């Protein structure tokens, strides 16, 4: 291989097998999807700015809620984490590249096609998917618009991409670690991704089975989910959430890894309880498989089922608590400074914990009868996903961008981005707890008058948050184009092999494996 650089022109990106190129493509793609999903969210918030129907009709509103969810989950958060994995895992374990570089190329390049299929449905007769990102049957089968078939194939392609990405990550981590890099010496980001990849391999085929059964019901006369034909609409929910609950941990475990890398650097103190962090992550992954029906407390399960899923769900608070306590103890008696990655990480710990509290409340089945399918749920999962997944991705970009492009970002601009996002996020999502508890159902385009005030506040916060992300794009481009030259270490004594290579990271790194003590 030697030291040759990348190929020139578009071919470089189309044919590349380089983990850094593919990582960058994943990250740019996910950011584009983030903006698109954000525009969908702003359509929702604009319509909900006041009671009555002003901007869009209910059918289109339902398409917006559905597409917002699908694009954010499958287009923004997951590809962003895969992008980070591509960039970082080989550099963190001292490998020259991913284990399966050609498959790596393929798993990225099918994604744009999946999302082209999905978004094209918005322009079709009958409109795009309008049944919510959870696409409960029979609303998504017998009563779906014709475009649902495009949705099904798009989900299939996204699933294939995720499975290939996971296989690649597992193969890389298990086979390509530098000599001396034992499993329990791996950075936590590598650990959390290893566990995430297993979750993905376990549940993506379940999702594929779920949408395939839909396809059969719609086109081939089966009745998997059709009660009139002897099928079972509740079966759909069991299958979907058996995928769906691990999926939410897929979107948060890599975030745990990122924060576990950043907090020690800026607390200037080693991570507290490394081993317990690994075990806690594994426990959360295991529990994620046995709690799925807490999304279904109101379907009328037998009481034994309700109790089992309530207890199992409450249990998740234990390993999650361990993680939060470990992060805080890492800060305790450290020597802290508050650069942008640290600000995002601290906000992550606080706001994710608040999302965890509302999650614990939702786990209590009798109380969930009041919370279920209200804005309280919307507030809950946005509190774990936005300051959870999204903030951790921002933190990761600020933290590793100097390594990737060789330039420091502008600290003042980064902090401004943080505070705008932080304020925007809380103004948007905190009032949703209130309207949810006061009785506002989710996924409605219009609402009773008593919910008007908090909805107006939430809508204003949403626009603030949305436009802050355009500012983020500006900061990133500005950093790539120039700025203060970053040192090889970038930060003060950061831990990890990626800081031992030059900034910017050369096109090929660790062609000879480093020695790990």
């Amino acid at each position, binding site marked *: 291989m030697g030291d040759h650089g990348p190929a020139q022109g578009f071919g470089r990106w189309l044919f590349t097998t380089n983990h850094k190129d593919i990582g960058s493509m994943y990250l740019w793609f996910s950011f584009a999807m983030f903006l698109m999903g954000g525009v969908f969210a*702003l359509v929702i918030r*604009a319509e909900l700015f*006041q*009671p*009555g*129907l*002003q*901007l*869009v*009709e*209910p059918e289109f509103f339902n398409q917006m809620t559905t597409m917002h969810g699908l694009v954010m989950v499958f287009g923004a958060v997951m590809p962003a984490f895969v992008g980070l994995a591509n960039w970082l895992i080989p550099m963190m374990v001292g490998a020259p590249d991913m284990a399966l570089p050609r498959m790596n190329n393929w798993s990225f390049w099918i994604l744009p096609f999946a999302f082209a299929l999905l978004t094209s449905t*918005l322009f079709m007769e009958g409109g795009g998917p309008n049944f919510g990102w959870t696409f*409960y049957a*029979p*609303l998504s089968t017998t*009563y779906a618009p014709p475009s649902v078939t495009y949705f099904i194939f798009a989900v299939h392609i996204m699933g294939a991409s995720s499975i290939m990405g996971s296989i690649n990550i597992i193969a890389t981590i298990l086979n390509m670690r530098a000599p001396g890099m034992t499993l329990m010496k791996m950075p936590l980001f590598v650990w959390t991704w290893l566990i995430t990849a297993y979750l993905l391999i376990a549940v993506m085929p379940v999702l594929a089975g779920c949408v395939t059964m839909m396809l059969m019901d719609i086109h081939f006369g089966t009745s998997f989910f059709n*009660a*009139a034909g002897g099928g079972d*609409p509740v079966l759909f929910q069991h299958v979907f959430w058996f995928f769906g609950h691990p999926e939410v941990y897929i979107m948060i475990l890599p975030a745990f890894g990122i924060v576990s890398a950043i907090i020690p650097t800026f*607390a200037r*103190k080693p991570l*507290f*309880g490394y*081993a*317990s962090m690994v075990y806690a992550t594994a426990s959360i992954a295991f529990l994620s498989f046995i709690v799925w029906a807490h999304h279904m407390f*109101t*379907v009328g399960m037998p009481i034994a089922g*309700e109790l089992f899923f*309530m207890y199992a769900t409450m249990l998740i*608070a*234990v390993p999650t*608590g*361990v993680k939060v*306590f470990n992060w805080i*103890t890492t800060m*305790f*008696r450290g*020597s*802290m*400074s508050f650069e942008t990655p640290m600000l995002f990480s*601290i906000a992550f710990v*606080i706001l994710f*914990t*608040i999302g965890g509290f509302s999650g*614990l*409340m939702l786990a*209590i089945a*009798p109380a969930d009868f009041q919370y*279920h*399918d*209200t804005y309280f749920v919307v507030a809950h999962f946005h509190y774990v996903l936005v300051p959870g997944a999204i903030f951790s991705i921002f933190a990761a970009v600020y933290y590793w961008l100097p390594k990737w492009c060789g330039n420091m970002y502008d600290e003042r601009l980064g902090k401004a981005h943080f505070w705008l996002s932080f304020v925007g996020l809380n103004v948007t999502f905190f009032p949703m707890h*209130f309207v949810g508890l*006061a009785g506002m*159902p989710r*996924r*409605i385009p*219009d609402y009773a008058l*008593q919910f*008007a005030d908090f909805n107006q506040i939430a809508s204003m916060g949403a*626009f603030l948050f949305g436009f802050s992300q355009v500012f983020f794009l500006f900061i990133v481009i500005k950093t790539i184009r120039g700025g203060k030259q970053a040192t090889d270490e970038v930060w003060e004594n950061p831990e990890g092999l990626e800081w031992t290579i030059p900034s910017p990271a050369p096109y090929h790194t660790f062609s000879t494996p480093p020695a790990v003590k």
Partner: protein
Amino acid sequence: MLFFSKRPIVKSLSSVKPFVVFPLLALSFQAFAKSSEVIEGEAQRWATNMTQGVTATSHEVYDLHMLIFMICVWIGVVVFGVMFYSMIMHRKSAGAVPSKFHESTLVELAWTIIPAIILVAMAVPATSTLIKIYDTSDADIDIKVVGYQWKWQYEYLGEDVSFFSNLTTPQDEIYGRAPKGEHYLLEVDEPVVIPINKKVRFLITANDVIHAWWVPALAVKRDAIPGYINDVWTIVDEPGIYRGQCAELCGKAHGFMPIVVHAMDEVDYQQWLDAKKVEAEELKLAMSQSFSMDELYARGEKVYQTNCVACHGPTGAGGVGPSLIGSSITTGPMGGHLSLMINGVQGSAMQAFGEQLNNIDMAAVITYKRNAWGNNMGDMLQPVDVLNHKRSL
């Protein structure tokens, strides 16, 4: 502009309401003040917490909710307290020197075991409440609740009383052409009536997609699933009108199928029930009568405004559904029109109204559609014709 259907755009451009994003932000305070006027006098504004409700169960659920919430608050105070203490006291800029400790099995064990104990303390009251909620035995009254796109049907089992409950908020209020009333989107033509201090069991199912029947004041929410019958119960303490909404996304008008429960004294309830029975008797008699064109037309207009207007529009010009003006159905053969109304159109939003409308309403609405908006077919349908047609199917 493909995304936005015509009516709201026209409306938003013709009023001061901003269409694009920036003016929306800029005018937010103006709009804020404006919509505040609309909802003047509404007692529930700025509500931030769950209702305590009007049943023993709802009180228990509220107490449980507050208990868990307060435990979370106190955990938060301690955890975030330590965190902010560190952030203030252990700053590099304040000259803090980092410690090197990074492990302690004892501490790890403590913060695994203590939360587990707190969880058990939470699980005990949660379990006892859940067991009570699940005890649906020995009900005094059984009411079957069926979710339809987008209305609720209530059937008093063993009483021969059954009716649909439709949203009554006018389209003009929804589209901002008229001021919004106090119970905007939470008002129906026929509330479900129950007596207080009696155990009422609701048997909940659905006819098409999954809905969810939710009345916050009763702390009752249960999915209405085709092919399943879920049972829930309530005993309401005080007379009153309690409002709720469908809580499971069920399509276009998911936000427009409210639930209104009217709880009244036993005596009043019995009177109401007797009146409903008489009404049902009269309806049966009327089924065999003939009506004049004017009677059918007037009745049909009402039925149309309740059941058809959401898709076919107030003037029959269409919307989500096709236009009915001069269409091949409304100006085609009567038999075809009737069959389509009874059976619906498979794979479309056009429902089968054969089970939803009684024969008089069916005859009336078909007569109306064939003679309104310049269709002027001049023909009409009698209830007995509908009956005969159904029998021949």
